[in-house]
């Protein structure tokens, strides 16, 4: 099926089955490999992207369901002030270990801060509990979200 999507601010046209999850369009068709495959059943959050600014598990979202809504991936989340703040907080607090889940963590955190600029612990729990980190960086993820929230918009 010929499809055109707005991904990271650019129009991308490609041919893909209607039921193909957005994850595989991003990775295998468009070569945007920053978005990761972790479980395929929306259990781990590694594939999180933004659609219309909302966090979505791209491994279970058929590409046909995206329609005309803009898609943002980790490759360009830093273009928004809140995304840049999150990335900087991740660097400042040295959150990352193996890093494989961190694309998804950053996308979930950026969406949280966009909706809730000063999240408390329960907001963080609710927004981030869908993202597994096997390296166990949770303590720093929590601290980095609070750190990002405390930074003025740059």
């Amino acid at each position, binding site marked *: 099926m010929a499809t055109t999507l707005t991904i990271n601010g650019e129009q991308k046209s490609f041919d893909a089955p209607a039921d193909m999850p957005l994850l595989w369009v991003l990775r295998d*068709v468009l070569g945007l*490999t920053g978005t990761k495959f972790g479980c395929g059943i929306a259990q781990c959050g590694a594939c999180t992207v933004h659609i219309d600014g909302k966090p979505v598990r791209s491994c279970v979202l058929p590409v046909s369901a995206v329609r005309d809504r803009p898609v943002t991936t*980790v490759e360009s989340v*830093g273009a928004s002030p809140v995304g840049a703040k999150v990335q900087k907080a*991740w660097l400042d607090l040295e959150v990352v270990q193996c*890093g494989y889940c961190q694309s998804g963590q950053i996308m979930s955190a950026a969406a949280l801060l966009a909706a809730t600029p000063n999240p408390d612990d329960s907001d963080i729990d609710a927004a981030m509990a869908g993202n597994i980190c096997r390296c*166990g960086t949770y303590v720093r993820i929590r601290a980095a979200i609070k750190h990002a929230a405390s930074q003025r918009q740059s």
Partner: protein
Amino acid sequence: MAISQKISDGFSRRSMLTGGLASGFLLAFHLPVRAVNEPNQPPDDPNGKFAPNAFIRIDHAGKTTLVMPQVEMGQGVYTAVAMILAEELDADFAQVTLEHAPPNDKLYGNPTFGLQVTGNSNSIRAFWKPLRDAGAGARAMLVQAAAQQWRVEPVSCSTSGSQVTHADSGRKLSYGELAAAASSQTPPKDVALKDPKDFVLIGKPLKRLDTPEKVNGKAVYGIDAMLPDMKFATVAVCPVFGGKVGKVDDSAAKKIPGVQKIVVLDDVVAVVGDHMWAAKKGLDALVIDWDEGPNARISSKDIWQDLRAASEKDGAVAKSTGDIAKGLATGEKLEASYELPFLAHATMEPLNATVHFKPDSCEIWTGTQIMTRVQSAAAKAAGLPLDKVIVNQHLIGGGFGRRLEPDMVVAAVRIAKQVDGPVKVVWTREEDIRHDVYRPVYRDTIAATLSGGKIVSWKYRVAGSAIIARWLPPAFQKGIDIDAIDSAVDMPYDIPNFHVEYVRAEPPAVPTGFWRGVGPNNNVFAIESFMDELARKAGKDPIDFRRAMLGKNPRLLAALDLVAEKSNWGQPLPARVGRGVSVQPSFGSFIATVVEAEIDEQGEVHLRRVSCAVDTGIAVNPDTIMAQLEGGLIFGLTAALYGEITIEKGRVQQSNFHDYRMLRIDQAPKIEVHVIKSGEAPGGIGETGVTAGPPALRNAIYAATGVALRRLPIDRALIAAGKKA
């Protein structure tokens, strides 16, 4: 906890990141993905560069490339290795470039194994001296070259920031300017190393070199390899261990748009497509008749029955001091046995390998903890000589021991032999979990006697799989698996009559392998759990009880005292909240841990707080030490709370994160890590938190409820029933 305060103090402020996101900061991994027709250039190619050893390359422009003998899988080893090399080289750390080492045991073998292996928390321990020698040797050659040019004594020259300076005359030459002349210098023998008090990098919480690309999606893991005209494949392996492919009906699969080819091997079926979705849909549409073979009746119940029986027999004696028979006849006796389950690794990056097979060559893109073994296993599978097999190393999205095995690469090569052009083979999470190489089941039996509040005898027997016998056969001697008894033979407590045995008990059909924390995972859990039971029998506080027997282990005693203070040990807690302690001398690091947990009426455990004190010798990067303990603790606590792979009808019953659960952020406790300053040689750190967490948690539950758990994962029903030991 105030991580931000801890890691933003001091040196990290000077970090290369102050200009915003990675701006002006050079980090160029050898591009793991390149055009297929580009000539292969090994990353250690020294041509035209000052290449004094396997680890350092300096070109005429001064570009300093450091070749990484150990792979980065999150443990921070690339940054630590670079810090050690750059420290002795006096290189400008902000300008170094890192490359993955190619497969070469001679150049890049881990001195502990004689193999290019990243594991057992020993990268820094094993490479500490060789890397310092390499950096210092290269520095000496650069100084000699400058001194010759200036006609001065080398000793009158100094170095810093990739520059040689002659202070008396004010002359300076950069390492780039000296590269050609340094190349013709004779490498010095016995070059002096820096006095640790002169370290400018080691001991500072520097920013990791791999982080910037991991926050913007640019980092390339094996699963991200992309090649022109690449195809994508996914696999199904017989759900029963050791089973074979019977009949395959591929008529429906072939009709799926994007499916290119179905590859049927004797034990695995792969569908090759234009993308992973086509491959996956194709695989789902296959009707595969498996020949399940002789293992289809195996179950966890039988495996445990066999292991329990085996563990009651005498084992090979690994260590015996004093008189154990006499000791066991003295004082009050206590006996117990502890059991640990099979565990999957569940790395976030599922198993994968990309292979381009041609009749005369085979090129592989993957992330592995065993570069040379992958190369040789791939050569065998490809039917090609070793030098025709190129392995491109990648960042690893979680190793935990799973990538100490080459099986995924071997399968991918076998599939690629039937595919025209490059193919990326990716395991689904379900296949990854069901075809792991599992942490073995273990059973430990302990008998000890108490007299005057101290242990007078200790007889410990560990029964379980001998991973070493399969993985490193020459190291398996006299029936003893040195991994299985690690941290059991070198227990920290002063016990006059001490005896450790090992019983090799291989579970039928289930492949077993190393899992983060390896042997100490099992032994530290059993030992530290039993220590709490003994303390209670002796009527002693768990920390006081341990402290009285740690006189010969001052580093561990200091860690225990520090964690007692930091955890508020002994101060009152609400009902159903307990603190538990564990200590361990494992991996050359001395760690004491206190877990504070609340246990509700249903037996559910709520982690409140973890305090940890560590003496790991010289902390190359103290922030990495903290991060590894924080993460390792979560990894171990995850297993203690949820981890169990069970077998029924020869099949693994778990399949994905819904039934093989992981601890999530909403359950994560506060974690405080206190790094003790030390001048001793560096210890290992990557696995230490994993072994520290479970016994401390188990002891917290014991303190809160009186229930003495002797198996993992924790049994909530047992806790709720409140049956006390």
